[in-house]
């Protein structure tokens, strides 16, 4: 019985750096990862920009955090879903992304959303 294992999906919906939501969302995910829940992350809309390669935040004097997404694997957070439409609409492909993700159609992401106990948008 996995009584205390909950399915928790984090949904990244905002572009990085313009606001803190993605970064503080990532901080939340890193803590939750220690609790051995069934975590997943979906990147939808401008949320896909969080995974863009070659982000260099030095000029805006902010800490970059794109590389932290690469460390998620080490925390056993391996379910990263990217919404295909959001990516294409932004003129990006999987090659533009820092990490390996599952590129999924909205129907499939929607199906996985419905299975969750908790969904948190950032």
């Amino acid at each position, binding site marked *: 019985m996995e009584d205390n294992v909950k399915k928790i999906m984090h949904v990244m*919906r905002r572009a990085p750096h313009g606001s803190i939501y993605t970064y503080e969302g990532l901080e939340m995910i890193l803590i939750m990862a220690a609790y051995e829940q069934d975590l997943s992350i979906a990147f939808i809309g401008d949320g896909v920009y969080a995974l863009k390669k070659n982000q260099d935040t030095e000029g805006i004097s902010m800490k970059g955090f794109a590389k932290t997404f690469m460390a998620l694997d080490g925390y056993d957070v391996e379910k990263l879903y990217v919404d295909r439409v959001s990516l294409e609409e932004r003129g990006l492909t999987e090659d533009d992304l820092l990490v390996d993700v599952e590129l999924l159609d*909205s129907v499939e992401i*929607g199906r996985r959303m419905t299975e969750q106990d908790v*969904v948190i948008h950032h």
Partner: protein
Amino acid sequence: MLHTINTSPFESPAMEECIRFVQQGDPVLFIENGVYAVQNGNRFTDAIAALQKTSPVYALQPDLDARGISIVAPGVKGIGYDGFVDLVEAHQVNSWL
């Protein structure tokens, strides 16, 4: 799964995105500035009609009242905070902030 939308469809893509992901039968509740989506006769009226073919659509009545929206798109049901609670009792929640 209950989906809530709290931003105006004129100012945010949240409604559009939510509609792409919502599963058949899942209820959708508009709150806060989200209720402008269901004001009858604006350019989202067709989208709301299409959504209702597969999902029941609700709007928070106090938020409608606050914004002076007296006529909502056909089929949309106004509910109070207690109705919101009843939906949450029946469903997990997905808030499209």
